[in-house]
């Protein structure tokens, strides 16, 4: 980790001092345990602010959209993939971005930690040797780190960024994982039960749009729910409106979503939003053998077609 952190700082320093970039987007320490916060460094001497750890959970590609200056960005595998999608979609200028790729073995899911602490407040956390030490008022607990890894990281097949300009640290081995295993149980249920499940889950939604705003692919100037003339769908927290909001958002990221997990992490209501978007990833894989964010040239599934595409649902 420190090794990577140092080389990120070095890379950033080099890029800034050689004037290859005007700005580095990275992570700095947050104000709460297990948190980092995005930071913007434009002076070489400030690179020491940059940190690298299991809490660097924001997908920084969001900060590259429609930037005018040259930017260096710290990117995990998933972040780099979403940058690739945005480059294809012309939302990020390839010429203006330097991707400082970093290997990632998984982020800590602070919600999992909270669940474990069951209402007790976490005041301090340290991670060492695959162990995590959680301290609060009247407790000090040690758990294996793996108990708290984000679900999106558990199904990750691209721990090393598939595209980058500078690679920091050493490449890590990719895991053999069951990519879509986590939604298999749900898929196997009858439609009514799935409906009940999503109804309960999405009923929690307060339409704060944190999921949308953290998502690098949600760059529409006016989101469909905010559009008028016509108003397609309501903005209320009525279940039907909420369902449709999440359904359409999932549809919109179909073939583009890299499962960075940012939406799920951002949700203040603990809705497992990945459960919805994960399905689109699976559809794309199974129907069109496509994985998003691995190439800057390949046309995404909804931008092309084959004459013999599957059509079992069409009479």
């Amino acid at each position: 980790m420190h090794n990577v952190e140092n080389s990120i700082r070095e890379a950033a320093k080099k890029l800034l001092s050689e004037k290859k970039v005007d700005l580095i987007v990275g992570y700095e320490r947050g104000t709460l345990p297990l948190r980092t916060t995005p930071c913007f460094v434009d002076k070489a001497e400030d690179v020491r602010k940059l940190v690298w750890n299991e809490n660097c959970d924001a997908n920084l590609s969001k900060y590259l959209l429609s930037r005018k200056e040259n930017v260096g960005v710290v990117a995990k595998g998933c972040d780099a993939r979403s940058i690739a999608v945005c480059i294809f979609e012309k939302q990020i200028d390839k010429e203006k971005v330097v991707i400082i790729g970093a290997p990632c073995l998984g982020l800590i899911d602070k919600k999992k930690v909270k669940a474990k602490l069951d209402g007790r407040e976490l005041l301090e956390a340290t991670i060492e040797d695959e162990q995590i030490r959680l301290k609060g008022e009247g407790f000090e607990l040690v758990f294996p780190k793996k108990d708290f890894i984000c679900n999106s990281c558990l199904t990750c097949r691209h721990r090393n960024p598939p595209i980058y300009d500078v690679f920091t640290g050493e490449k890590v081995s990719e895991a053999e994982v069951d990519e879509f295993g986590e939604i298999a149980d749900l898929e196997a249920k009858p439609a009514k039960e799935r409906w009940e499940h999503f109804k309960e889950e999405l009923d929690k939604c307060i339409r704060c749009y944190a999921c949308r705003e953290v998502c690098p692919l949600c760059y529409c100037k006016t989101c469909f729910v905010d559009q008028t003339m016509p108003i397609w769908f309501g903005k209320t927290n009525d279940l039907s409106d909420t369902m449709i909001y999440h359904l359409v958002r999932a549809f919109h990221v179909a073939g583009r979503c890299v499962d960075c997990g940012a939406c799920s992490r951002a949700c203040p209501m603990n809705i497992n939003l990945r459960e919805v978007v994960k399905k689109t990833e699976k559809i794309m894989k199974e129907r069109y053998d496509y994985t998003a964010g691995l190439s800057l040239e390949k046309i995404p599934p909804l931008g092309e077609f084959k004459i013999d595409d599957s059509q079992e649902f069409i009479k």
Partner: protein
Amino acid sequence: MDKLGSVMVIGGGVAGVQASLDLADSNFKVYLVDSLPSIGGTMAQLDKTFPTNDCAMCILAPKLVAAGRHQNISLLTNANLKHVEGKAGHFKATLTRRSRRVDEDKCTGCGVCAQKCPVEALDKFNEGLSKGGAVYVRYPQAVPLIYIINKEKCLGCGICEEVCKAGAIRYDQKDEELQLDVGSIILATGFDEFDPSLKTEYGYGRHLNVVSSIEFERLLSASGPHAGLVLRPSDGDIPRKIAFIQCVGSRDATCGTDYCSSVCCMYATKEAVIAKEHMNQIEPTIFLMDVRAYGKDFDKYIERAENEYGVRFVRCRVSSIEEVPETRNLKIKYEPEDGKLIQEEFNLVVLTVGIKPSESNKELAEKLGVELDKFGFFKTQTFTPISTSKPGIFVCGVASSPKDIPETVTQASAASTGVGELLASARGTLVKKKEYPKERDVRGQPPRIGVFICHCGINIGGVIDVPSVVEYAQTLPNVVHACDNLYTCSSDTQEIVKNRIQEYGLNRVIVASCSPRTHEPLFQETIKEAGLNRYLFEMANIRDQCSWVHMHDHKAATEKAKDLMRMAVAKAREIEPLERVALGVTRRGLVIGGGLAGITAALALAKQGFEVDLIEKNKELGGFLRKIHYTLENDDTQEYLRAMIDNVYSNELIKVFLNSKVENVSGYVGNFKTTVTLDSGSEVKRELEHGIIIVATGGEEYHPNEYLYGKDHRVLTQLELENRITVAADEKFGNVVMIQCVGSRNDEHPYCSRMCCGEAVKNSLKVKEKDPEANVYVLFRDIRTYGIMEEDYKRAREAGVIFIRYEEENKPKLAKIKSEGKEDLQVSVFEPIIQEDIIIDADLLVLSAAVIPPQENGTLAKMLKVPLNEDGFFLEAHAKLRPVDFATEGIFVCGMAHSPKPIEESISQAKAAVSRACTLLTKDTIEAEGIIATVNPNRCTACELCMLVCAYNAIEIEETKRGKVAKVNSALCKGCGACAATCRCSAIDLKGFTDMQMNLIINTLR
């Protein structure tokens, strides 16, 4: 002498319709004459078409409707030519129009007469397989949709007269005579099917379960007698084993049909595939001599039929068919290549009937004074494939020789170019432009909707409570007038509509009646005449999709009609006037490629008065044709080419750029800009402006790696042999072995090069002519001497040329055998009939090398934004009906750039491309569609997804003050709306079908 700007097209099949449309679109007045009561010809009878399995009616119907509506086309159906005099530029024709016993002006095509007719007459369209009344239309989508009374069947009972509320029945209507003055005539008479009962050994007419392929086609059709179910005639069972017998009335001297019908291998395969698609239990077997899949992408189709659908191909002639009395199954005796006689039982036998010259050709030829060939097709020459023996009279399609639909359509366009060249000076003199009152500006006004609800005689009124729908419509928002009419489409009601528009100040009009597909243009015309923009119109289909399909539930049908009314009003409240933007046209052409096709195209354009830039990459014109010296008919190709090139250089309108290549293309239809680089020592760049582009980049001969080519001087390609034959005075050839399909139909080039079989036959005949002692062996996979070429194949066999078939997996082998200090070439090939290898010592080994696409096609395709097929040839917009167009408007393809083909086909295609180009170049402005996509720049993120899904390259990204945004080119947009539905940001909308309108329609649910 003054030429006339009008044309008579005889025959309303796909050829006649295409020729008429091209001519009418390039400002000629067209009289389209058909002896049948409706146009559409044979293609309207087809179920699906190979190799794309397109639904024939789906793709043909829009053309028929366009022809029916075109203001420069007069349809003269149920009419025959009586007499013609005059000459090129001015013919006087006399026609007889037979009585329909129905008033064409009054019949609305509502069909009540046919519903009520008590007579059951066999339906000719369905090949006698189903029954219709004595008053009928040939097929449901008939153009013109006017009924006709079959006087032989009619009882004169008077029922139809009684039920026809339009008063269109005229039992006393007489035949009438008609005089036409036209500048030129096109013959598009199509063909007759061979009568299979003439081949008595197949038992057609005796055995119930032996059907002709055309009958089978109707059986397969969704609109056929069993609605697509394949049921055999004897007992209505599903036939499991079906045999297709090929060449029934083709390649058969015993019937006087020595030619190949060209289409049967493919259409039989198509029928087999579709039968299999309809009912998977069917096992089709096709008995044939050769698989003649010579067309573009045909071999791929055959391969799929064999491997994916399990269609069995057996090479043999079937000797006899016997019926098994108990089961009515059929026993077929045949001898496969290995000579063992086999007997196999089938449930159904389909006789793949060949093409026969139309019976009417003889009479027509006489009246017109044109020559027929020995079979009865109109005679043409290699270099003039669309000219008859008489100037001013052109021919296209199967009227001149058997051919498939794309060839036919190509020739139809080519014939139109023939006319254009002849009558260029009279173009536009006989077409009239309709004048309309000034359009009322209704923008910003609150909608004032007028609703006209049609009874359609009793068609609607007999089921739906029309007055209650009128009453309901009056309660809907913004409706200021609603009324009902007996026939809204009748001319007196049209006047009423116009008056009401004025009286009530209507600014939106809704007609609730039949289908917008047939009647929208009529009503749009009416409101336009009343000063409203044509798009301020909406229809509710309460007949075809309501009263006719819910005939027994009056209440539900009325409720549905009200719902449809509410939906129409919801949409009408949001419709806006749309503009068809007029775009200027640079009346100048660009032809890329200076081979036969390019030269032909350039000359054809220049002859019609258009300037042309002709770009050739080499230092001289001529291309592939430079290597061909004679034709099968012994015409001198080099002489022809020299004459053509002279014409090019002497024509002031043509500018030739040699050693040149296209560097960049920008712009769009009517307004292209092209940068050309001239390499004449130093590079020079030129900017050219033009309205259309014709791609004629040609093909190249494959340089074989096989059979020691290039390593042994005795191994030649066909073109090299041809050169040698021409140059050498009296050479002794000895043993000449020709190997076909070298570099074709393999993994690298999976297609058939189409011209090599003809080349081999031609050159072997020439060898035999020069040196009768020479032995010529042609080793082939299938001999594909389609059409009239079949005769030459026969001639070659008669001349002693030996043809030996080989299988793909058992290719001929070449060995060098040392004997007496020299090395002999020895070819061994497995002979399937004697089932043994035979060995031939070859003095010359001639390779029929493939035709391959030039490498630069790829770069050019990218520049033009047009596609290539998998093989690297340019891919046309539609394999069947748009063979020389690209999806991108204003760009056309011809010659070998499209696919390998012989001389006459390249010439036809080049002229066809010019005809299509002339539909644009003859206009001052091109009118863009009104219904097109528009971009809301406030929402657009320029993600380019719309560009990916647009099939017409109609969207580009533009740099604006607000950053990059998509922009729709209204000249290219066809209004499909794929972009609008794909855009995540809803930044694109489709005029005429806007999100707002759709939203309101969906919201009408109560």
